[in-house]
């Protein structure tokens, strides 16, 4: 494949890691990485954590430096969006009017923050990109109370960070507990308690009806009839895949690019998808899957690179779900399935300060299906290995975790 060209569209985690993985797999042709944002490729998880807190400068977020890209012979085309894909002509059209020919194309355009459905004049923010966070930080700098709508990963993390910056913070979410799509109330309630201990006002089980006003003077009307006043509102209500630019491509797009088990678009062997924008057929599940997790983007990048370079050795992509979240002094790590109900066992204590615990989940047949750990990486990696091996007896696994060294949490200096 030395004369072939791969165009990767999307210059964040999924796109950058695909380009790098292609070189690791020995691909010697041309690689062009196209990205809509003008910034050098940067990483997103710190956006709601260290970068929002002002602890890290932008350079700490680099996914690949221009020098590293040059030495890997990855051409960067930044600040220009792909606007149209012509699969038959093997050509992608860019917003500046130029076109790129390709042999293979990787769609890694990720997702965008779901926009606020409550129009207000100004002062209402989302967090997805660097520009989003810079705009939010500018408004935060003027001080005042903050309402965070949405208690998912991004909302809950941002609430913790903004609280730590000294603002009065209220979190509102119609679901019963934080991170409800990832963890059950056995973890969600202690997490809500953690927020309350840090002085965050929480309104779970309550929805938003409307937002009025403008920056510095906003009113958030809630479904329970109350109104919260805020200087700044952050809306963190999920993400929608950036697949609009493929609308007239002829590809099957349905809340993401629909792919086969090998992460190839179902309608073309030359089109692949990676990361938050990819919906693929995981052989373990009856329905297609789309994940919005960092490690998924990286692992899927490696899978796509392998499958593209080795068409005679196609490997189905079937990752073990993994996501983490940092809130105050909680390092949450979630592997496998934890929000599916059923039996669970708590080893350690989620209510202690600082917390250190593993919550282990069983399926109906008494096998381990997932773990949520807090400040206890050893229990996480032990869980991941067990889940990778598969078919692990739940009772025995609980004993195995209980037998781990009960060292206190690592010092804060880590």
């Amino acid at each position, binding site marked *: 494949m030395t004369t072939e060209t791969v165009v990767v569209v999307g210059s964040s985690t999924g796109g950058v890691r695909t380009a790098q993985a292609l070189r690791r797999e020995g691909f010697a042709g041309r690689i062009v990485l196209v990205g809509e944002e003008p910034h050098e490729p940067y990483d997103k*998880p710190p956006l709601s954590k260290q970068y929002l807190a002002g602890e890290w400068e932008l350079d700490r977020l680099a996914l690949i430096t221009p020098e590293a890209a040059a030495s890997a012979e990855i051409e960067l085309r930044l600040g220009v969006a792909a606007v149209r894909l012509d699969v038959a002509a093997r050509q992608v059209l860019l917003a500046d009017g130029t076109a790129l020919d390709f042999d293979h194309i990787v769609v890694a355009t990720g997702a965008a923050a779901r926009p606020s459905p409550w129009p207000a004049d100004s002062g209402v923010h989302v967090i997805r990109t660097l520009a989003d966070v810079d705009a939010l930080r500018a408004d935060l700098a003027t001080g005042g109370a903050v309402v965070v709508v949405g208690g998912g990963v991004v909302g809950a993390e941002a609430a913790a960070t903004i609280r730590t910056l000294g603002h009065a913070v209220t979190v509102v979410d119609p679901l019963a507990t934080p991170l409800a799509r990832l963890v059950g109330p056995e973890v969600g309630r202690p997490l809500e308690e953690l927020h309350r201990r840090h002085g965050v006002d929480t309104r779970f089980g309550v929805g938003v009806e409307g937002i009025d006003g403008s920056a510095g003077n906003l009113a958030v009307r809630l479904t329970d009839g109350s109104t919260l006043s805020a200087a700044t509102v952050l809306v963190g209500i999920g993400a929608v895949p950036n697949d609009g630019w493929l609308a007239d491509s002829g590809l099957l797009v349905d809340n993401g690019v629909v792919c086969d088990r090998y992460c190839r678009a179902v309608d073309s062997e030359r089109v692949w998808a990676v990361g938050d924008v990819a919906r693929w057929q995981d052989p373990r599940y009856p329905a297609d899957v789309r994940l919005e997790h960092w490690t998924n983007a990286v692992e899927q990048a490696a899978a796509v690179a392998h499958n593209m370079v080795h068409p005679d050795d196609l490997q189905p992509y079937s990752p073990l779900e993994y996501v983490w979240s940092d809130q105050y002094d909680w390092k949450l*790590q979630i592997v496998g399935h934890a929000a599916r109900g059923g039996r669970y066992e708590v080893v350690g204590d989620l209510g202690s300060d600082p917390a250190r615990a593993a919550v282990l989940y069983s399926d109906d047949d008494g096998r381990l299906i997932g773990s949520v750990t807090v400040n206890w990486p050893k229990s996480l*990696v032990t869980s991941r290995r067990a889940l990778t091996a598969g078919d692990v007896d739940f009772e025995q696994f609980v004993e195995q975790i209980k037998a781990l060294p009960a060292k206190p949490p*690592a010092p804060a200096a880590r």
Partner: protein
Amino acid sequence: MKVQIDAQLCQGHGRCYDLAPDLFGEDDEGYATLTALTADGIVPEGREGDIRLAAANCPESAVLVLEEALNDRR
């Protein structure tokens, strides 16, 4: 090529030592360590790809890779 673990950054996601168990190890808490093969920070000949794979998978950018085996970086 040289490799280091930044202990300040490492959060024990365990990606490096699961992907390259002979090049990275774990301490009692689950944080990453180097191993006998990488103890001096020198990457064994032919294993550069595995080191890059581990670095690409580390969510905290805590696997520090120095492409050219130049002199000490600190």
